[in-house]
């Protein structure tokens, strides 16, 4: 189980994430929503280790991982797909995914065997590429892929990490309409397995509503609402956070 306890980060005087305590259960998909600048991506960065918390804790299965660097958290099963496409641009699509498969295999420090000799890694990478329907583009250089395919490749890398916790930061941003279902189907399939924890930052509320078991609302760095999708979406506090913009009321009010 992933949990944050009173998690806070300040930039100068400004608390971008402000005392957020929240636990995420395996088998559930939690959407994190909130207006621009609410701290959603920063919250993700604190969990996956791209930023170091000013105070508070991140726990994974009870273990305090707050002080761990990003690579260690990834190896512990925290997988993250990024909002802005973040690939290895001059490597092939297959190589992008293979590198992620390789992390789990522990072969990264293998200096003297041939990369192409590890068929099993390549085969697994191909499976993940096929899952995002990119198998035919395996040899294409990542930078030359169209934007939508790059987003899919981003997801394939996450799949290849085989994490326990999947963190999607706006996975469909910038995709054309017909591409969106591929990614949503993948997320639904992960959810269907029932043992994975999924965190999703997404602005398209139709997507959020149809996929989520639970919605957490951040506003000005604070957690202001938490509950079932129907309740949260129609609550006053959320309407105000999105449309009103004044200081939030008490989170439990």
């Amino acid at each position: 189980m992933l949990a944050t306890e009173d998690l806070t980060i300040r930039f100068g005087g400004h608390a971008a994430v402000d005392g957020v305590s929240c636990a995420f259960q395996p088998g559930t998909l939690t959407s994190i929503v909130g207006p621009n600048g609410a701290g959603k991506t920063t919250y993700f960065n604190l969990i996956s280790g791209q930023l170091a918390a000013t105070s508070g804790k991140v726990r994974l299965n009870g273990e305090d991982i707050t002080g761990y660097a990003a690579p260690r958290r990834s190896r512990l099963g925290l997988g993250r797909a990024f909002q802005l496409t973040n690939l290895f641009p001059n490597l092939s699509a297959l190589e992008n995914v293979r590198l992620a498969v390789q992390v789990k295999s522990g072969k990264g420090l293998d200096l003297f065997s041939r990369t192409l000799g590890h068929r099993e890694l390549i085969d697994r990478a191909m499976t993940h590429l096929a899952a995002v329907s990119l198998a035919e583009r395996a040899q294409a250089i990542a930078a030359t892929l169209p934007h939508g395919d790059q987003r899919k490749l981003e997801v394939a890398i996450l799949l290849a990490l085989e994490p326990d916790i999947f963190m999607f930061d706006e996975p469909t941003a910038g995709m054309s309409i017909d591409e969106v279902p591929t990614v949503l189907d993948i997320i639904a399939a992960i959810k269907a397995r029932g043992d994975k924890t999924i965190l999703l930052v997404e602005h398209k509320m139709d997507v959020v509503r149809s996929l989520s078991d639970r919605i957490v609302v951040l506003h000005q760095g604070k957690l202001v609402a938490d509950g079932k999708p129907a309740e949260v979406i129609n609550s006053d506090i959320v309407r105000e956070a999105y449309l009103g913009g004044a200081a939030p009321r008490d989170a439990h009010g």
Partner: protein
Amino acid sequence: MVRAILSDDLPRSRWLAVALVLIVVGLAVAPFLFPGAKSLNVAAKICVFIVLAASFDLLLGYTGIVSFAHTMFFGIGAYGVAIALTRLGAEWTAVAVGIVAGLIVAVALAALIGLFSLRVRTIFFAMITLAVASAFAILASQLPALTGGEDGLNYRLPAALRASFSLADGTLFGVRLNGRLVDYYLVYAASLVLVLVLLRVVNSPFGSVLMAIRENPFRAEAIGYRTVVYRTIASCIAAAVAALAGSLLALWSSQTNPDTTLSFDIMVDILLMVVIGGMGTMYGAVLGAVLLVFAQNYLQDLLGIANQALAGVPLLAGLFHPDRWLLWLGVAFILCVYFFPTGIVGSLRNRRS
């Protein structure tokens, strides 16, 4: 078979393949094809610099690290053997001691610099290595008791490598089978093996992580690779191979001094080799080294001719002075960085596709 030796990294260009075969075979038969002390010396230098440039490419081309301290490790390897041969006498045990000591010092120093400063930005790292390397070069020249100072060390090689040693009576194709020939083939074989080892390293799972780090260190961290560890290991391997190249040079030339091993000029040379040959291709380092050592030794003659022809024209004659060969390669280098960032090898490969 060929795939395994080349670690699946095929030339992927007919002309490149031809060039590589020419180099490998040419160097193998060089002593018989081009007899004479100068050409043998050029051939051995080419071997050594191929190794040195290839190890630098591991850093620059594959990992995206700009280090100006690479000649420092080259020098450490050379001085290791030179000092051991001076102190312990012209024995093979001395050679072994020197090589091992050089390796240990080089790797330890590379690890230290790496862990201390590989977290910082490219520019910062480049500046720091430049400073460290220059301090080291001065240090070497200031410890005459150990290093022979500016003059360096002159020492005797093990008997089997000297010209006076006779492998067999008589000659083969008119070439005396003496110790120099043994020495040359020792250098040749060691260089070949080292380049193939480097080729394997860059085509290994480890090498693929290095390229990932070069492409996007942030994402490499995010999927679970600790970039500092990988960069430091790459630096250590590069340093170790550079030190071995230095040892080979020391074993070949029976003299070691700051100018031939530690100077910034050598650093400039290997930078030119890798960039002109093609960064991140390994074969580029091979081509670049051959080209540059040739230029160093024979472009001068060409320039000499041009210089003669222009004797009357004051400034132009200066530009074509035989000693100004580096000027022209410097211009080629800048043009490469701008217009052919993948160097000769990249251009050859692109021709095909």
